């Protein structure tokens, strides 16, 4: 088990001692060359220094200095780096050079080697970040890359953290914190037990954490996102200020209070929207019903658009602006939803989320760990959580990345940690019934129905409706149906509850043909009746033993019933034995029977938990191996 702890760094006991000016640690090229080039690695980080020099809570300078021995082509990636600039951060200098292993300089970074760009990333239509991009490499391997850059901040809100490990060995990693005046801050660490060296001079203090000879990060298949970094030291200032908004990290309540102030006065609806909300909820008998109506209205009325300017990365646009623009990002749409709920006297609050794909919130480390906002509605009978950016969810349902997260609810107490619910395997189902006729040349003509619920329905709806090909039949037949069937051709494909009734299962009725479903030879026909779900070896993590859990996107269960009318004149020569497995983490069952030349095959599978813990891994691995073997086996018909 990894230990977690949190320390508060006070400044009351400062001892003023003389300290020398900072000299970036130097390692000679000869040191680098010695004994390293034969290592089977793409590169070696010889030195990684991060210096954060805080003048006061509104002024700090970050210096990065890295020295990397590049050994393979892939290691050249270390020469690709970018520096982000925005209203709070300005890049003051970038320098880089390439040396041979004898320390002779081969190349120096020139101004025109630095590309400036301000393309907004991912789903953000526009943000005001600007980037300085560097791609710096040397054609002949091996070589030494060294670079430095400096960024000036006008806030300590973006206090850099320390992640000393890489995917390659690190010889030495240093985090140097320089305080020109007493500044309170908190840290949170994992895998780093060392104390810093402290140098004091008058009011000034320097703290230096150093780690040497670090192994590369451990990587395992499907590891939980929270385990991707195994050594880190996180920082947060006890007091910070962003665009005049002062905040504190000494408690979640204080941190939440800062967030609450950012949204002050932004919950007002336009008069037109007030009328709409009144009308929408006029006939509703319960608050739950009202929230359902308002959530559905939100989904239809708005679209997700992220425009992030300055503090807009944290501060929502007003509900009024969402009323007019009919768009917004997660915090804007949440503000709008909360405003609508409040308008009909239902208390509702924004909740800050670190989505599950980013890891798990460090609950005892109040700080800016969040990347998302949802709405929380504490109804008397039950609470409702609302993902305001999702177009294909029922009110109260959450997508997988929001499930089971510790979140910070910004309520009257300012900030309160709560946990979002997570659906169990029996709520995330796929169930199907397919009936088909198999011909002796291997063709299968089939009709069937498949139902999706919970997260399976959410993912499927999103997949169908956001695919750029637009043709639903084509998307379904070349996607879900084609995972194990070769080129199914659909004559019919009708969906129910695809664009509405999100609280009901998504249903697809279909019929079609797979021309080469079975493999036929002179005497035999080989086929696998597990048409829709199978586990294959690629679903099994590669490791014999695990350090970390196996992470599923969400728990699920499937049940598939397949009825195949067999071609006449054939006998069943071979079939996998029916199998039933039951474990604390899942179950699997197959069965079959043949009656009046019709094969009925049933396959059930469930994984109960999002995570399979390392202590269960051995049992999980044997479970999966048995499932894979069973799912791979063919039914064989022999000509009588």
């Amino acid at each position, binding site marked *: 088990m990894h230990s977690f702890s949190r320390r508060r760094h006070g400044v009351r006991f400062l001892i003023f001692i003389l300290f020398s000016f900072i000299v970036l640690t130097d390692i000679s090229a000869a040191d680098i060359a010695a004994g390293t080039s034969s290592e089977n690695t793409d590169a070696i980080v010889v030195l990684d220094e991060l210096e954060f020099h805080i003048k006061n809570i509104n002024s700090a300078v970050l210096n990065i200095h890295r020295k990397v021995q590049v050994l393979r082509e892939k290691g050249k990636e270390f020469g690709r780096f970018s520096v982000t600039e925005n209203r709070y951060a300005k890049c003051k200098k970038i320098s880089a050079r390439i040396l041979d292993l004898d320390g002779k300089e081969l190349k120096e970074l020139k101004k025109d080697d630095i590309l*400036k760009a301000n393309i907004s990333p991912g789903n953000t239509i*526009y943000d005001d970040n600007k980037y300085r991009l560097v791609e710096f490499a040397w054609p002949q391997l091996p070589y030494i890359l060294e670079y430095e850059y400096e960024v000036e901040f006008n806030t300590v809100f973006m206090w850099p953290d320390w992640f000393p490990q890489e995917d390659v060995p690190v010889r030495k990693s240093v985090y140097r914190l320089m305080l020109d005046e007493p500044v309170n801050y908190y840290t949170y660490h994992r895998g780093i037990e060392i104390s810093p060296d402290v140098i004091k001079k008058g009011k000034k203090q320097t703290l230096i954490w150093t780690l040497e000879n670090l192994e590369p990060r451990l990587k395992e298949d499907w590891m939980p996102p929270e385990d991707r970094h195994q050594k880190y030291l996180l920082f947060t200032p006890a007091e910070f200020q962003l665009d005049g908004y002062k905040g504190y990290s000494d408690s979640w309540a204080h941190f939440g209070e800062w967030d609450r102030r950012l949204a002050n006065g932004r919950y007002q609806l336009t008069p037109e929207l007030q009328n709409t909300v009144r009308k929408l909820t006029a006939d509703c008998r319960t608050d739950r019903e009202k929230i359902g109506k308002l959530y559905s209205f939100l989904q*239809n009325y708005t679209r997700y658009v992220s425009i992030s300017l300055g503090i807009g990365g944290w501060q929502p646009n007003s509900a009024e602006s969402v009323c007019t*623009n*009919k768009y917004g990002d997660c915090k804007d749409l949440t503000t709008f939803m909360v405003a609508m709920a409040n308008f009909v006297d239902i208390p509702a609050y924004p909740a800050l989320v670190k989505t599950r794909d980013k890891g798990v919130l460090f609950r005892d480390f109040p700080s800016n760990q969040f990347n998302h906002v949802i709405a929380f509605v504490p109804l008397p009978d039950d609470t409702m959580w609302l993902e305001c950016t999702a177009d294909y969810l029922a009110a109260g349902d959450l997508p997988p990345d929001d499930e089971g997260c510790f979140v910070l609810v910004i309520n009257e107490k300012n900030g309160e940690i709560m946990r979002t619910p997570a659906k169990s395997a029996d709520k995330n189902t796929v169930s199907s019934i397919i009936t088909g006729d198999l011909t002796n040349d291997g063709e299968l003509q089939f009709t069937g129905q498949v139902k999706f619920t919970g997260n399976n329905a959410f993912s499927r709806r999103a997949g169908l*409706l*956001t695919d750029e090909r*637009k043709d639903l039949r084509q998307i379904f037949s070349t996607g879900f149906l084609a995972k194990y069937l*070769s080129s199914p051709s659909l004559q019919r494909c009708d969906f129910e509850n695809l664009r509405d009734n999100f609280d009901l299962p998504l249903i697809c009725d279909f019929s079609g043909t797979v021309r080469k479903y079975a493999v036929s030879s002179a005497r035999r026909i*080989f086929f696998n009746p597990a048409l829709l779900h199978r586990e294959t070896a690629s679903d099994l993590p590669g490791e014999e033993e695990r350090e970390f859990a196996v992470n599923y996107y969400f728990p699920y269960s499937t049940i598939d019933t397949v009825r195949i009318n067999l071609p006449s004149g054939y006998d069943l020569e071979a079939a996998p034995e029916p199998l039933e497995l039951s474990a604390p983490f899942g179950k699997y069952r197959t069965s079959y029977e043949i009656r009046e030349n019709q094969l009925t095959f049933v396959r059930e599978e469930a994984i109960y938990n999002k995570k399979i813990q390392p202590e269960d891994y051995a049992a999980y691995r044997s479970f999966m191996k048995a499932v894979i073997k069973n799912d791979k086996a063919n039914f064989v018909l022999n000509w009588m």
Partner: protein
Amino acid sequence: MSRTNLPVLMFLFCFMVFFGQQAVAQEKWGKVSKEVLAMKVFPEDSTAPAVVLFDVGKISITQQFSMNMERHVRIKILSEEGKDAANVKIRYFHKDNLGRIEAQTILPNGKKIKLNGKQIFEESVKNYYKQKVFAIPGVEVGSVIEYKYKLSSEYLQMLEPWYFQNEYYTKLSKVSVSILPGFHYNAFQRNIFGAEAVPTEEDFIIPSATAKRGKAFTWELENLPGISKEPYMLTLDDYRMALFFQLIEYRDMYSSYRFIKTWDDLAEKLNEAYKEYYEMNGDLRKKMPEIMGDTQVIPEKIKKLYEFSRDGIETDWLATIYPRNKPGEVLEKRKGTPTEKNFLLLSMLRDAGIEAKPMLISTRRNGTLIENWPQLGQFDRVIVYAEYGSQKYFMDAADRYCPFCVLPQNDIVSKGLVIDESRGKIVDIPPPGNNNMTEIQGVMKLDSDGNLEGKFIMHLKGYRDIAMREKLNTTDMEKYISELLTDQFSDAKLDTFEIAHLDSLNLPLAITLNFSVPEFAQIVNDNIYFSLPFLNSQHKNPFRRAKRFFPVDFNYIFRNSENIELSIPKEFEIAELPAQKTLNIKSANYVLQLASGEKGLSIRRNFNLDKTIFYPSEYGFLRSFYGEMVSADQGQVVLRRIPDAAGN
């Protein structure tokens, strides 16, 4: 499309005389019919999330010697997904001016919500481009959105290209180009045929010179299906209906200016611009003997200089035909764009007395060259064309995994423009050789518990070799090789592997994999069943769609062969083998042969592709060919226990 900014071209425009600007009548802004506002489903495509009702552009030349384009787009939103059409990005050349942006949403009840100027943002994009970005406010399902803008450019030589097709179904796409007297533009059409290719013509009066009349040409296309990418389709723009305009001449009563009209015109101007990039500096001259050694053989010299340019300079993958750095600077930086690396090679070859010329190509990602359109914007890379005796050399030093005289995959195009001083000549580039092959030999043994173990030796040549080398060098080598195995045998374990000639580009890559697959075969009673143990079989048909509207482009021809010798447990005999299979369609064939011997089974699989482009009319055959191949590759072998061996 890149825009030229060579000084020599801009200079010519300084002598132009003023002409009037044509008044342009647009579709009425904000006037939308009740029927359109009420429309819930688009009759021609009931699943369409949005429909472009019209996309209308008016291109003209102003009295201020600039090109103006006014564009007005109107889109009907039919579903939640269609709302994405309201997030607009307009890309433009960084020296042009894009302004007067207006956008609005018209709700089904007729209410209008306008875009605020503060909601318009600007971004810088790589390669000299910028873009305006905005999200049109107030969009609902059922609403109509529209936006318009004006683009001004001082670069009259190339007018804005016009793409008729969009991601969404387009009801009407119309572009008018108003040409003033004296100007002579050529219009180049892509994927527009028949009557649609012929514009309507109309005279117009020039306001400030009433005695003179200009001419407006209008192309109008209706009911165009949306277009999106499909497998084996590299450049979507190659398949979109499009128009390109190029100024070739200006003449008035006092003067006459001929712009690029022919490839020779273009070569003359470009040759002037390129001159300084042939210059050798002292450092480069000093480097030459070191590179060439004491070789006196010209082809060997060419090879050495190519290899130095390829390996000695890091590649910056910027697509441009304009070098920014001279060869000496490229040498100093040890980094250059493909074009800069090739100019370095050119200058060294010339210095060594070898006849070498720049050759402009449009790489596969950039699109197909239109041969009768002398336009620089078509090209995105300069490679090297050299001649020695009867031998022609085509070289691109960009890709460090390409052996001498093998062009990178992205360069596999049929033609290029050779700049021979003041002459420009379209030259055929020979298609890549037919040595792109994967040869696999497998020796393996199946035991009576169904476990398989053995060895594969894989030899790769041509582009197969190049692609594999790149993978092995830029990914986790062991993981990648392991995945080669597990892609085919899902339970396989890679025991050991060896790679020969990884660093010797001139020798074919050879990979040896020792592996084992526990419980490979299914055992039921006295029978053993297993699928054919290929390392390189076809699991799935890549052509899932029943119909295809665009050609399938394989890039290069290839040959795959795999020979397996499989020992079976001695107490078993072969009960049944999959049928031998031979598939032949025009330019593709597949053969599966099996023979049983004393100790087991010999399996031979060949798949050869002898042409690279398959047209939509051939798609059905190709799809069915792949379907049959997938089925044959899944063939099953049945072994049965020999009665004596069972003790019966």
